[in-house]
């Protein structure tokens, strides 16, 4: 199925073959996959998608692989939770949580992009895969490389959370802890990618890898009954996810798969300590000024976002906005999501909830409109962020009397069952 024409420069439009390339050699613009949508129109139907597997591969016609998927057979189709309790807490009528804390196999949305990237790396006959990562990508690359029988190298900042480190090492990659921040790790990886013939999923395989994020948007639309919500809040690190969710929804619209137009406002969430794209949105500046990250949301700590400009354009073009979240608000956001919906998200989820709260309070997300929150990673990976704020509720001696006394002293009221 020749659905992929090749690659195309996002800036100058110059075509390239579908090879492991990522930068236009003329204007240095990023390359992206160019599809033949006319070939897909009419053949790609709702029924065809619904009869596919309960994974991202039900959308394989819109993903840049040539053969069968090689890894990640259970990735995607995560729950879209109607979050009634959270909606009440936020003063909203209709809130949904797209819950990638339970994505397979490594509990973050990165499994979507990596499943596509590793399949593509195998198609290109690479023997080694690698990545620069803030943690979630490392987990996912190591897991999928193990499944695909590939050697893997993952490069991470040395100060990452223990959960991210253990969640990578268990798959037996070569983990390289770099004494620097993510932007320095990424810079090093660019040099390594020039020297070795490796598939760096977020460097030379990036055009293919990034396409996996479209499935986040496809699933939102399909799970809402083939329609888009009025607002989506997306966390941003490099800025790719919001672009690809938007692209996925526009593709569905173009192929006639949506009931009605794609009329969604895309909003961006970043931490105050690392929010260069949101700052640009607030300042109406198309130039993203890099920052030195300082936030507990380490998975979002990319100070020089590769896709920042395009993320800015998507948010502005859709009529959305952006908001920052302080470290305290991030923790409160994590707790609010957990205590209202039973969903333990990592710090990025706290950023999303906190930024959404600000946007609602500002009236940018009207309370009577529908909202989807993109929750992209599991809280068990970043326990350090909330551990200092959580305490054992009651500590007692192993007697009923001690329990009752403790309940009374803490003002906890419960009704004993009637024994008569």
């Amino acid at each position, binding site marked *: 199925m020749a659905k992929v024409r090749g690659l195309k420069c996002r800036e100058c439009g110059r075509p390239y073959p579908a090879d492991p390339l990522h930068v236009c050699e003329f204007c240095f613009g990023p390359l992206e996959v160019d599809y033949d949508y006319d070939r897909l129109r009419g053949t790609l139907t709702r029924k065809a998608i619904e009869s596919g597997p309960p994974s991202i591969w039900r959308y394989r016609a819109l993903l840049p692989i040539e053969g069968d998927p090689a890894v990640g057979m259970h990735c995607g189709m995560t729950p879209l939770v109607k979050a009634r309790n959270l909606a009440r807490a936020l003063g909203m009528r209709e809130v949904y949580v797209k819950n990638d804390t339970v994505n397979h196999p490594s509990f973050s949305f990165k499994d979507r992009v990596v499943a596509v990237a590793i399949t593509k790396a195998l198609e290109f006959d690479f023997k080694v895969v690698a990545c620069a990562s803030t943690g979630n990508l490392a987990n996912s690359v190591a897991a999928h490389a193990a499944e695909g029988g590939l050697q893997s190298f993952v490069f991470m900042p040395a100060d990452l959370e223990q959960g991210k480190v253990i969640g990578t090492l268990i798959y037996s990659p070569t983990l390289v802890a770099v004494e620097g921040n993510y932007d320095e790790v*990424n810079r090093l990886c660019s040099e390594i990618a020039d020297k070795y013939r490796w598939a760096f999923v977020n460097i030379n395989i990036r055009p293919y890898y990034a396409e996996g994020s479209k499935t986040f948007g496809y699933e939102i639309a399909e799970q809402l009954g083939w329609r888009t919500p009025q607002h989506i809040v997306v966390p941003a690190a490099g800025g790719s996810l919001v672009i690809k969710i938007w692209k996925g929804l526009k593709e569905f619209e173009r192929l006639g798969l949506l009931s009605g137009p794609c009329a969604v406002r895309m909003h961006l969430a970043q931490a105050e300590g690392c929010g260069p794209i949101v700052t640009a949105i607030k300042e109406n*500046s198309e130039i993203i000024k890099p920052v030195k990250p300082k936030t507990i949301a380490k998975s979002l700590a990319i100070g020089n976002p590769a896709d920042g*400009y395009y993320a800015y354009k998507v948010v502005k073009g859709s009529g959305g906005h952006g908001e920052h979240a302080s470290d305290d608000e991030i923790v409160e956001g994590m707790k609010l999501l957990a205590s209202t919906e039973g969903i333990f998200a990592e710090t990025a989820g706290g950023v999303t909830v906190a930024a959404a709260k600000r946007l609602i309070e500002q009236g940018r997300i009207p309370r009577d409109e529908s909202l989807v929150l993109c929750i992209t990673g599991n809280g068990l990976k970043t326990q350090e962020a909330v551990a200092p704020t959580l305490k054992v509720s009651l500590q007692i001696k192993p007697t009923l009397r001690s329990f009752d006394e403790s309940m009374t002293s803490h003002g906890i009221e419960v009704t004993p069952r009637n024994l008569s």
Partner: protein
Amino acid sequence: MPKRMVTLIFPQTLVTEPVIYRLSRQFKIIPNVRRARVTEKAGEVMLELEGEEEELNRGIAYLNTLGIRVEPTQGKGH
């Protein structure tokens, strides 16, 4: 000679200065601009720098001292 793809991010105060001209005059570096964007608030130029490694490092250090961010270009759009 080695080449580097870089993005220069200029603060507002330097947008009107001929910084790339000075870079090529003061160091043995050949700049080749591929794309650029200048707004009221900042400037962003994507270019290729060609020169010996040591000269490239010195030139980039010079730009940094002026207050210009030099970042590796990885298909960054604008």
